[in-house]
């Protein structure tokens, strides 16, 4: 197995286990509590509205929006880590058919791995800090994956044309 394939397969399996463990942890210790909070704060917002208390209603809706923001990102991170991990493993199996030099393939493999780690990491960091840095980390990771993916797609297409 070539170096680039090893990088993709081993990193992919490690990220898949990491993504699943994150999902298991989240399901056990955070998801149900988050869902309860989302439901309760939304209902409270409307209950306060029915009582004519718009200030309390606004506060409840803010709590709902904050919890929903964190929940959506946590679930997204779980699915993206596992999805990207699967992509790495699949590419690891097919990488010999990318018509590029091993050096370029190794560079692409590391770009895919680094992007697959940093993109969801940036997303989950947004639950701690909504500033520009987590967004930049996520954007950087996503860009790495997209650029590498485009190069791999071209590599496959070149290989098909040559055969």
């Amino acid at each position, binding site marked *: 197995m070539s170096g680039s394939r090893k990088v993709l397969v081993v990193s992919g*399996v490690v990220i898949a286990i990491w993504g699943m463990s994150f999902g298991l942890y989240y399901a056990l210790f955070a998801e149900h509590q988050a869902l309860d909070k989302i439901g309760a704060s939304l209902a409270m917002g409307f209950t306060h509205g029915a009582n004519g208390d718009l200030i309390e209603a606004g506060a409840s809706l803010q709590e709902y929006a904050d919890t929903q923001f964190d929940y959506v990102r946590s679930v997204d991170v779980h699915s993206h880590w596992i999805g990207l991990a699967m992509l790495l493993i699949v590419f690891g199996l097919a990488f010999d058919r990318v018509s590029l030099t091993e050096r370029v393939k190794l560079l692409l493999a590391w770009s895919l791995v680094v992007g697959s780690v940093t993109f969801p990491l940036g997303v989950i960091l947004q639950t701690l800090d909504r500033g520009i840095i987590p967004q930049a980390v996520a954007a950087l990771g*996503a860009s790495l994956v997209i650029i590498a993916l485009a190069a791999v*797609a071209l590599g496959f297409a070149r290989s098909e044309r040559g055969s």
Partner: protein
Amino acid sequence: MTSRTFLIVSGISLIVVGMIFGDVFAVFVLHQNANRIGETLTAVTDAIASKDSVAANSLFSKIGGLLENRGTKVDTHVHVIDFGYLALLLAFLQPHIAIGERARKRLAVLFIAGAVILPVSVFAIHYVGLSYSPFEAIGWASIFADLGGLLVIVAVVGFLIGLCRVGGASKTNEETPDRSWASRVLLSGGTFLILAGFLHGAYYAVFNLQAHESQYQVALETMINASVAQQNKPTPDMKDPYSVVEGYGLIQAEKAVNIAAHSHIIEFGLLAILLAFVQKYVFLAEAWKKRWVVLLLIGSVVLPAFVLLELSLGLVAGGIADAGGLMVIIALVGMLVGVLRNNRRGAGV
């Protein structure tokens, strides 16, 4: 049946079952559920206008139930299919896993057991609820779902240990790549589908995601304010609150179709690449193999494209998207038959 054949057959079967479940869910549950949520939200605005906080609260419990019903079914659909993908992946890694065939088969069975227990339990969450549960927030169905997830993790860790022990064994187990037309087209087509999905996802995240999230909150606040404004009127005019509910539904729908298109095109791309490796184990005439590949790729484009067009074209687009899903299912069943024929003729996998 070897561990690899078992994983390939189980993997394709899981994907087929997950997709049929998804199609049934889309046709019979999804839209009806969304309509019920909209109707209940409209009733909530009536409750606010008539200062009935008890009714507002109980209507929200109803919405919670509807959301849980939808959420658990989406989770079931996603997990069954993803476990199918993972099973196929593990099947192709089998030659690189340096543990005995018997142990590999046990791990494969453990993996498939978890891959069945988790989604079935997730499906049951809405119906079982907290009945007889020793915990305050987690019911028995959730406990079994987590157990299923744990079985999958244990199996994957087992395979990973075998993968790390591989050493020189991989050289002897290395296989000649399949260069058939079907395999090549699936590999290229799949990668381009994934790239299209990533570009769409990045566009949505940059230009729409945060706007949608803030629009939700504004819509909910406006919904309450517009309803409260009617509280002291002798004859409440609910036109404004109702139109806000409608707008809220549209934002939800816009987000839902974008996420569905994004995830489906990427998943179909991944599926196409995985199936590129299955082709050499599909014992069918070359013409039939080509037909299934073309059908699969057409369906893989049609479904996400028409899901995205659902907001502008309505139910017609929904119907065409479902037909795209059906094309993928038919192609998968065709390939599964080929794999089973290959196993029956004793060629092994």
